[in-house]
């Protein structure tokens, strides 16, 4: 920095006593403060503050149009004995576990397929990502029509094939509804997992596979001992994101079932909306939303420590 000052002729005249303006312009920390200001303002006003406010609201009995008073843990006590709340916790865990596991399996498989040599490679990869580009709600609406109780194309096809003899009530029957919602989520999530894992696969040097083949490794051995270890870091990150977004999913379920039938597909997020905004009990809704935080922290912690352990094993300190 001192060289900079010296090489600027207009400044050298007043160099003895830099003015306040001069210092504001050149002090690195102050300049950085100005640069950080817009982003920090948004994130503090509309992210950090609401996060804190949400936790505070969960300890009040605030309703829409009426300020709340502090009631301690009453909301949580009420939820603790509320079977619908526990059902939504169960649904959320079920939804997250099944959808994430299948998304990972199919996504990895699809990434391995796309990594192979074939004609129209670039175009096929581009097409795969389309479900991820289209807004979730709009594709959920398409699924709603596909799952229609009367005019479902799936039921029609299965009847024509002679596999079933009457329409499946996809969104009206408890288990079918759960399965249908999970399928729609997997459908939307697979492209993301596949394309990000594909990016990871492309960094693996082909010469490793060639060397392994020369040594007589089978397909499975090459996957298990080359692909998988080299891919682990990116798998950890992708699956963390996938789990977080699945756990907090709202729009897909809201567009398809709104939590029905008989709360069978209510996730914690949809229940929170139902109680907080539709019924107007903001405090209770906030409590349900806050109850999601420990689960999220646990998911983040697991992947964080997994990565640390791996870094330690590899003995590398770069990111």
């Amino acid at each position, binding site marked *: 920095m001192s060289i900079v000052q010296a090489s600027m002729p207009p400044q050298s005249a007043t160099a003895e006593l830099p003015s306040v303006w001069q210092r504001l312009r050149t002090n690195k920390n102050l*300049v950085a403060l100005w640069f950080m200001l817009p*982003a920090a303002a948004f994130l503090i006003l509309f992210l950090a503050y609401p996060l804190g406010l949400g936790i505070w609201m969960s300890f009040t009995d605030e309703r829409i149009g009426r300020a709340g008073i502090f009631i301690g843990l009453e909301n949580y006590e009420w939820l603790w004995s509320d079977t619908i709340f526990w059902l939504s916790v169960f649904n959320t865990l079920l939804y997250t576990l099944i959808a994430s596991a299948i998304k990972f399996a199919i996504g990895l498989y699809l990434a391995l397929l796309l990594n192979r040599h074939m004609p129209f490679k670039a175009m096929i990869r581009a*097409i795969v990502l389309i479900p991820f580009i289209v807004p979730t709600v709009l594709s959920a609406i398409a699924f709603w029509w596909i799952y229609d109780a009367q005019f479902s194309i799936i039921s029609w096809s299965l009847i024509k094939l002679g596999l079933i003899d009457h329409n499946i009530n996809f969104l009206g029957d408890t288990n079918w509804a759960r399965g249908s919602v999970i399928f729609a989520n997997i459908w939307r999530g697979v492209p*993301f997992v596949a394309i990000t894992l594909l990016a990871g696969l492309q960094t693996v040097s082909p010469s490793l596979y060639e060397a392994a083949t020369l040594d007589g490794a089978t397909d499975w051995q090459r996957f298990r001992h080359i692909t998988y270890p080299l891919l682990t870091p990116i798998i950890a990150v992708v699956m963390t994101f996938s789990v977080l977004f699945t756990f907090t999913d709202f729009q897909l379920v809201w567009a398809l079932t709104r939590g029905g039938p008989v709360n069978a597909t209510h996730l914690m997020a949809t229940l929170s909306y139902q109680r*907080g905004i539709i019924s107007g009990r903001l405090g209770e809704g906030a409590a349900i939303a806050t109850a999601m935080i420990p689960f999220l922290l646990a998911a983040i912690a697991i992947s964080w420590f997994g990565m640390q352990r791996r870094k330690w094993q590899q003995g590398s300190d770069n*990111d």
Partner: protein
Amino acid sequence: MTDSATMESKKLVTGVQALAQSDDTEGMSYLESLPRRLITLYLPLFIILIVLLFPFYWMALTSIKPDEQLIDMNTYNPFWVVHPTFKHIEKLLFETEYPRWLWNTMYVATCATILSIIASVLAAYAIVRLRFKGADTVGVLIFFAYLVPPSILFIPLASVIQAYGLFDSPLSLILVYPTLLIPFSTWLLMGYFKTIPYELEECALIDGASRWQILVKIVLPLAVPGLISAFIFSFTLCWNEFIYALTFLQSTPNKTVPVAIVNEFVDGDIYKWGSLMAGALVGSLPLVILYAFFVEHYVSAMTGAVKE
């Protein structure tokens, strides 16, 4: 696996070829016979592609199907359309407020994206290049901000928006969406800024450029691909956002496409499907067209944010 000697020599040859050329060679795929490739590669890929694309086909087909074919699946083959009609799309564009919703969505997405990109460029530059005290901590905090999901924030945000008097106004979304976009864009741009050589900036500093001039005249032109990635990905996220728009917007003309589709068309009418699907199709098209032009940027945005 017949003659191992020729196999070995073949491998050697291809190994040399692979060294000479880039990674886009056939690799070891010549080792597989065509029938084997059919079963292990083309067939599964074909099935997955069909499943991934079927909902869009169904959406498009339904939106041009006459009503009587929609509900009569026995006289007509439901997988095809006999006399396509634009009635549903016409109804959508001229009898509903759909153009208004489309405009709202685009307006909110554009404004929020521009705001976020400006804030992210400044923040990313400060974190990567100014190296101020605590820059690393701020970087980690921004990463964590990325992990905070909207579904735990919408209730308190609703009361914040209410307190600021922004309820039922597009401005509420323009101000709130950057919280989803800034963490992601900052993280992405940090990666891009890191690749720009220090020497360029040092030269400019020696020539007397201010930090602002360096950012505008040197760093930004070099980071254009990153800016495009951040821009289109942010735009897509805005278009896709649902829960905030659902919570903050009440009156019909102010809604965005995803919210309006879910709330305004559901009238129990058995013939709603045509216009509903037309609405979903028309709402998706702008993004798909944008995507078609910028596929590479999308992919680098998605993978860039995950890789760091």
